[in-house]
């Protein structure tokens, strides 16, 4: 079982990293030929950074759109972020300089109870998907399965955190061992197997699914462009050839 999970860990992380890298390269290499920021938009680069910060941290646009989706979506993502930080204790060595930032009462407490916030958020989102007719209409099987997958990860985590504690020292040894290719025994817990197995599945499907919204938002031209088309000429490489064509015509 330990070897199976070690392999799964490497494979899923490999697919996640390679798939995401390819996607990022693709997004990076496709130009935005026209200035299309949704206005009013910032007129400076630092203004755009601030806009993106508000969008990514507070979900500003979603807040304006629908309060229910915002509250559930934000609870889920906030909980996810807190839980993620708490999980760093399984992979960060205790002599590493950030250790005190992770291994303290506040972060661990917040991270533990964040799982409950996550769960409420996820159930709220699932509820909207089922009960709001407009959202039901646009939902494909994958949209439900994605929520169910993350709910199962959350619930299995909650079980280990609150109800059926596992050998966390052994888990840390297993995780750190994976990183230095010194494979250790995985503590035995059905919840841990479910938890890690599904996280691996999530990592594998990440680059092939709507989870691409996470990098996607940073590449969104309506959000990341500076509103300065009159001041600065903006031309994509493929469009530059049109300029050259007409210059040829007018000169000859």
């Amino acid at each position, binding site marked *: 079982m330990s070897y199976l999970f070690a392999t799964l860990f490497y494979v899923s992380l490999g697919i996640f990293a390679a798939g995401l890298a390819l996607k990022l390269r693709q997004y990076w290499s496709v130009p935005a030929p026209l200035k299309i920021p949704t206005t009013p938009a910032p007129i400076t680069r630092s203004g755009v950074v601030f806009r993106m910060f508000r969008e990514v941290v507070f979900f500003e646009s*979603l807040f304006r759109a629908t309060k229910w989706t915002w509250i559930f*979506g934000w609870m889920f993502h906030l909980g996810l972020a807190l839980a993620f930080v708490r999980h760093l204790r399984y992979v960060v060595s205790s002599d590493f300089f950030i250790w005190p930032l992770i291994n303290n009462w506040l972060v661990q407490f917040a991270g533990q109870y964040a799982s409950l916030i996550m769960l409420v958020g996820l159930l709220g989102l699932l509820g909207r998907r089922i009960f709001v007719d407009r*959202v039901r209409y646009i939902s494909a099987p994958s949209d439900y399965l994605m929520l169910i997958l993350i709910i199962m990860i959350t619930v299995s985590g909650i079980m280990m955190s609150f109800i059926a504690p596992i050998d966390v020292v052994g888990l840390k040894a297993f995780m750190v061992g994976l990183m230095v290719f010194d494979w250790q025994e995985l503590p035995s817990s059905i919840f841990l197997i479910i938890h890690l197995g599904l996280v691996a599945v999530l990592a594998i499907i990440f680059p092939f699914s709507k989870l691409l919204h996470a990098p996607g938002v940073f590449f*969104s031209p309506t959000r990341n462009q500076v509103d300065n088309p009159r001041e600065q*000429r903006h031309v994509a490489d493929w*469009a530059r050839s049109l300029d050259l064509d007409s210059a040829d015509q007018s000169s000859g």
Partner: protein
Amino acid sequence: MAKPDFEIPELKADTEAPAVQEGTMSHSSPFIAKPEHQRPLSYPGELVEDWHDRAIAKMSDLLGKYRSFRVYLDSCVKCGACTDKCHYFLGTSDPNNMPVGRQDLLRKVYRRYFTLVGKYLPGLVGAQNLTREVLDEWYSYYHQCSQCRRCSVFCPYGIDTSEISMAAREILNDIGMGQKYCNEIIAKVFKIGNNLGLPEPALVDTLEGLEEDVFEDEGVEVKYPLDEKGADVLLVTPSADFFAEPHVDGLIGYGKVFHEAGISWTLSSHASEAANFGLFIGSYENMRNVSMRIREAAQELGVKRIVFGECGHAWRVAYSFLNTLAGPFDFLDPKYPIPQHILEVTHDLIKRDAIKLDPSANDDIIVTFHDSCNIARATRMGDMPGGQFVIPREVIKAAVNNFVDMAPETIHDATFCCGGGGGLLTDDLIELRVKGAVPRMNALKHVIEEYGVTHMAAICAICKSQFTKVLPYYGMGMDMIVSVHQLVSNAIVLEAKQ
């Protein structure tokens, strides 16, 4: 107004999301372009035999050219934030008119041909083959989007349905399935210089007529010059301004402003159109070809500045794209924004007391203002974000004493499209236009009842034409709609200097 063969929605105090009703607008589809409309735009005359392969190839081409298209097809999480934001959904209940529903018509094909999961497990992610039925669905519903970008304001990733609908229309054009209304008009611009096909002599006639009318009314010789070399300003305005009501009253107003400020200006017969329907069909090349006429006219006439008249999507192409498409404009005077909006000019003149307005001239009316979608969400005026909301209102308030805004959720960047934008201002789509106007009509009706509003000012030729047509369906007068520069025209004090 002919008796409609569809039910006219009842207006309510608030616009609320209706229950989903599938297929209510599946019959709506504009006339298909004929070969003579297609060819001047370099598109095949009719549906090509290998349309399937060619459509997929075109999609692949666009995925490599437009980051928006690529990123937006991947990023949607189906959160539903946009589902109640489109005026066409609010007016028709058809789920394919929810922004995400509309995007999914294309996204399902993208997933089938361009994503791993869609290739092998299509049912899981709702992926579908491109069939003739899907193609017809595209043609119908991508011509039910006015590309107003209201959805993009509310999307947590800024997904802009107009980018998808423009790409869809470009694919359709590329396989020979263009829309008659847009393509016929673009061809007219290439041939004659404007959307309405008004040749130079007709323009000369019209402008002389205007000069006579203004002289009769005001006793002042205001000039409306055409092709005058050496003028400082080239005014590019939608051709509707040359003859349609209430548009022409706006043109009269621009002329009075220039006259009173002592700015020498001219119109151009070569670039006698501010509108650029190349935007609506998503064609960079055609949009560029139309834009180049403005550059050519400016060079030919030797002007120092380019100013645009009241037109929504035209201001988008001018403000956001003109520098990209037809720049650099290093032959113009860099002291002025290139290009400039007529409202920026008038606003500045009012601020500097270079022209005088007497708002009591408009004391018989109570005015509200319709923010045009393209101006509100795709452009700016002045030097601060949101100037596109402030400047028109300040000009209106300088010209009238009684001004009231509509409900906050229906103005500024949350404004509702008039229902006729994006190349849909054609009689073959009248049902869509009437139903799509519902959210704006609701908001307007409210201020009429609450504050006695008598007129709605707009700064877009499409809005003006659309409202003129649609207001009577809702029992309101077609002459309620006015140009902002019509208000200026009424209020401006002409001191008869020559």
